[in-house]
């Protein structure tokens, strides 16, 4: 695997739209060619080289390419958007839409990310060592087909509206989650190791949520049906099992109504 190191030396005054910086676009290019990729600061289009220094050439394919971001990328958005393979490492923070609509490969952000990261994700892996903002692994605006697959792992906290319209895949939050988790969910799994604030699983049709801590304001649409012991994200625990959201439609499969499952640790 070849490594391209992109170092932010000339930080943008506004925010930088970096959707072109993916292993797919970098593969097969030399460092000089990579420096000519388009990025946008507001509506101004510039070559990437205006803000970054680039060292190392891309691999032959996306899968063969690793991109390492150095410098403070707090103002760089859309890194790895729609990527299909390869690897990205961000040594510090990054802004919004990191790993949005990604289909494959791996992104590792060592700091924090802002909102809309991993939205519309179809596959691959997004690892965040710090906190994530709002709409993590959520669906794009208006879209009823949210996260389809892949894995999002956030070590810290997540903001609100995590996993809206989730359809598949897994989101693991090491810390706490704010309000609205898996709203309208129709599949997939969300695991919250800390506490959740409220409105967990609202209008959920299918899928699973595990909360290891407490839910400050649980929804009345979930009904307790029993207790289970399960191993979740490498941790074995006892959970109370609820089904819901009883206010929502529920499809019948093999003669039985399908519900979403909400597990809270005892």
């Amino acid at each position: 695997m070849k490594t391209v190191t992109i170092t932010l030396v000339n930080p943008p005054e506004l925010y930088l739209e970096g959707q072109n910086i993916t292993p797919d676009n970098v593969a097969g290019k030399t460092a000089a060619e990579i420096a000519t990729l388009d990025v946008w600061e507001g509506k101004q289009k510039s070559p990437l080289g205006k803000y970054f220094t680039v060292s190392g050439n891309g691999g032959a394919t996306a899968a063969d390419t690793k991109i390492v971001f150095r410098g403070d990328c707090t103002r760089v958005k859309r890194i790895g958007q729609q990527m299909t393979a390869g690897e990205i490492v961000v040594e510090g923070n990054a802004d919004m839409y990191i790993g949005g609509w990604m289909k494959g490969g791996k992104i590792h952000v060592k700091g924090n990310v802002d909102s809309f990261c991993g939205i519309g994700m179809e596959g691959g892996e997004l690892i965040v060592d710090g906190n994530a903002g709002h709409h993590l692994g959520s669906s794009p605006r208006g879209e009823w087909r949210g996260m389809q697959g892949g894995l999002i792992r956030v070590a810290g906290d997540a903001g609100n509206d995590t996993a809206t319209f989730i359809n598949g895949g897994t989101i693991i939050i090491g810390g706490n989650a704010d309000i609205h988790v898996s709203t309208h969910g129709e599949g997939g799994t969300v695991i919250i190791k800390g506490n959740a604030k409220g409105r967990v699983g609202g209008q959920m049709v299918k899928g699973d949520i595990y909360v290891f801590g407490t839910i400050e304001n649980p929804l009345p649409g979930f009904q307790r049906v029993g207790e289970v012991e399960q191993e979740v994200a490498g941790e074995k625990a006892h959970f109370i099992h609820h089904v819901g959201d009883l206010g929502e439609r529920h499809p019948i499969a093999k003669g039985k109504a399908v519900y979403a499952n909400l597990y809270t640790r005892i």
Partner: protein
Amino acid sequence: MGELIVKNGFVFDPLQGIKGDRMDVGVRDGKIVETNTLKNPKEIDAAGMTVMAGGVDIHAHVVGPKVNVGRLFRPEDKLFKSPLKRCNRMEMGFSVPSTFKTGYDYARMGYVFVNEAAMPPLHSPHVHEEIRDTPIIDNAAMPVFGNNWFTLDYLKNNEIENNAAYTAWLLRATRGFAIKVVNPGGTEAWGWGLNCENIHDTVPYFDITPAKIITGLIETNEFLGLPHSMHLHTNNLGNPGNYTDTLDSLRLAEGYTAKNNFGRDQVMHVTHVQFCSYGGDSWKNIDSQAKTIMDYVNAHDNITIDMGQVTLDETTTMTADGPFEHHLRGLNNLKWANTDVELETAAGVVPYIYSPNVKVSTIQWAVGLELALYSNDLMRTFITTDHPNAGPFTRYPRVIKWLMSRAARDATMKTFKWLDRTIESTTIDSIDRELTLYEIAQMTRAGPAKALGISNTYGGLAPGMDGDIAVYALNPENMPSDPDRIEEAFSRCAYLVKDGVVTARGGEVVTEPAKRTIWVDVKVPENAQVQRDIYEHFLRHYSVGVKNYQLFDEHLHNPRVIEVDTTQ
């Protein structure tokens, strides 16, 4: 304005009966003229290409409040689909494109006239403001009458003359073009949580049947002698087994003949018939009854239809048939908007995916094509997708490809998951017919223009008509063996000349000539009773005053008035 000549093309003009003759077409000052009167024209070389009049779309939802609801509540319809600025204005969206994209895309396909299919009268200012913002294409808009309280009251008491006076007033108040009827009575019944599933279901409170509304509006239309006929979206649309209700509706036109000075022959235009031609009694055993419907239509000259072809895309349904949209959201559980428009109509919007993996979708696809392929008279059968209900208008070229090529139909059918069951439930696989360019010109220009009563201006290339000419890179003497080339040629016309101005070249818009709003101004004798009824209804029931209800002139963009005088 200068002179222009389109030279050596193969000209197809069904209004004049020109079937692919190699000839020139001349334009001066925006109008078609005899070529020998031109002095020093600019030349367009159309050698080896097909030349037709600018396209005329008889039924598409392109402007107005429900289209805008579709735009607003489907941001995902724009996502990653409109990144480049190609023209003067930003283009966005696929199934519900922005106004600018609507105009540009029609121009790219060689269309010049689009008839907005349903204008809620109360919201006519919005419709006209969007017409203004839709570049290039000339627009007309049909106000909806089939559930209007005035209309229901007058027709219940057989007061055709009063209804005609009201119709004339409303056409003027909304700067409307024709009488549109959507699920007659049913949309009003929906206000009581009911529907009119066949033409004999009584509308609650008003105590009138859809049959009586339809015949009453035909009579009103012919009493006034409007350019277009009554334009009908039938009852029980979109449900299995509805073809009997459709036949019942069609039979209502029996005995009526067209009375007008606009060259129109039909008294009833039935729109998106694909949605009205289903057999069976459930979604499990739905089948195609297109043949039955077309046998009737072929035998009755006073009816025209358009297809409403399903294009197998993800799209957005929107109709003034409120109960239908409510029903649809129960089927697909997607986001949904519905509204009631005071005394007049209702509307709803629901996204919909016509998938080649879903049996009902592929049967619907076959039904639409069968309608056209069973038609004996393509001057009475028009290409539409009921944009955006069965698919976006940008798929017309694909519909043309399917109609012109059995191989193209076969290639699409190969992608169907339930091919066997689709073939069982339809007759599409037994049809070898391939339409000709002349027939396509009938279905997309000459026919719709004649049915709309505008064939003295649009849809043909006779001297005196508008200088609207579309040139397609297709050689009728050497048609491409790959049907995809047909779709390509019709998607991106080689040239579009509108009002004598080269508007598109090589499939790209190069200039934006002024667009027009076409409306019908009917002069009727003063009618004190109708004046009083209008006054009373606005006083008691409307949320707006009658003065504010009527369109202000500043909303009307570049009008072209068609005058009808019934007082003579």
